[in-house]
């Protein structure tokens, strides 16, 4: 039973109805990162997919940018409670990157420059649910927002959309990534308010 806060009215808007529980709308684009922003030059950049033993696929910037791309307009929901609607991105679908890989490993750990990691069930990044994004609002993605490339998985809390992403390791079992080891939820569905571990 919630305690009523004497004299608190709150501020409600029609747009809140579109938001997951406990979120509020923002129009700016806040940044959440655990450490300094890495600056990665495109001639050093690469993206690899491995199965824990062998590298199955490797792209450098040139071969990555030769892949077919999609433009996506999606809502973002950060675990720190802001949501931003109708953000426009361009990226390569994970469906394209995983197309030639035959695997029955059901989980993935995305790896980033700066040693960040985040875990996801593979089924959550397939079928038009996840992209490796390199443009935001028509411009190259800024380093502080994850450029040159970030994962975009808009149906989960934004910490799953790993900035500065550089690879995917396929795994037989789920295991926690960086924030998931530090008290945040293993899966992170904003509509179920899965913010912290054990919720």
């Amino acid at each position: 039973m919630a305690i009523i806060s004497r004299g608190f009215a709150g501020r409600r808007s029609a747009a809140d109805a579109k938001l997951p529980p406990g979120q509020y709308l923002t129009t700016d684009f806040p940044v959440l990162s655990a450490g300094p922003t890495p600056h990665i030059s495109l001639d050093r950049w690469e993206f690899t997919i491995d199965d824990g033993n062998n590298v199955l696929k490797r792209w450098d910037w040139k071969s990555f940018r030769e892949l077919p791309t999609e433009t996506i307009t999606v809502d973002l929901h950060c675990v720190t409670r802001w949501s931003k609607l109708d953000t426009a991105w361009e990226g390569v679908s994970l469906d394209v990157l995983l197309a030639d890989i035959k695997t029955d490993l059901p989980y993935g750990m995305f790896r980033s420059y700066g040693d960040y990691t985040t875990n996801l069930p593979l089924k959550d990044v397939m079928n038009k649910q996840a992209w490796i994004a390199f443009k935001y609002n028509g411009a190259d993605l800024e380093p502080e927002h994850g450029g040159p490339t970030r994962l975009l998985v808009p149906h989960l809390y934004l910490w799953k959309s790993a900035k500065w992403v550089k690879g995917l390791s396929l795994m037989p079992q789920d295991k926690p990534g960086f924030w998931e080891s530090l008290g945040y939820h293993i899966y992170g569905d904003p509509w179920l308010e899965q913010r912290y571990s054990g919720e």
Partner: protein
Amino acid sequence: MTWRSAAVIGLHDETATARTIALAVRDWPGHIAGQHVDVRLTAADGYSAVRSYSIASAPSSDGRIELTVERLPSGEVSPYLTQQVMIGDDLELRGPIGGWFVWRRDQTEPIQLVAGGSGIVPLMAMVRSRASAGSIAPFRLLYSVREPETVFYRDELRALSNQGDSVVITYAYTRVTPKDWPRPAGRIDAELIASGTWPSNLRPSSYVCGPTSFVEHTTGLLIAAGHDREKIRTERFGATGERK
């Protein structure tokens, strides 16, 4: 994580826009310096709003914590917490939350704290935790504020920096300096990093907290001064000013 009732037992204005709220939390499990809590306000019709606030107080076992809240002009929760809350009110909170931006009392290495504005709050918990634990870990604090009137915890910081084995504090004023201040008003630059922080060869752990642009700027300077990026932990506030 369960919601706990928290009685407001003290209020103290830090600046014209920031207030410290002392709370007695039922069944509080304790915290580590640097962690935060979620605070929930509920209107009479059941509508509720939740925001996160850093804990300012040192870990203790008496169930008391302090939050320092900066009022945001367009905020939904911070105006209530800084202007309407009264001693004797009950709030709801849950936590502690966060296991990354923390200083533990068994850390003995040199610590560099860098605060921008209200980013001082979780760093103050670290300074207080060091003092209450009797730690002699070498601490330095570089604290950037707009003007002298916007310094939080001024007297306590002065006292903590005037003892043996104390915290070495350097202020940076970005808009207005105190009278006769040697350095003109301006943001932190390489020169101030060189004179006001631990040299990189001591391999300090650094904690940087403030608005996003401040964190980007100062971590860039620390890395340029030779600090390992792996030894720098950050916590950023967005343009909305809410904790991220």
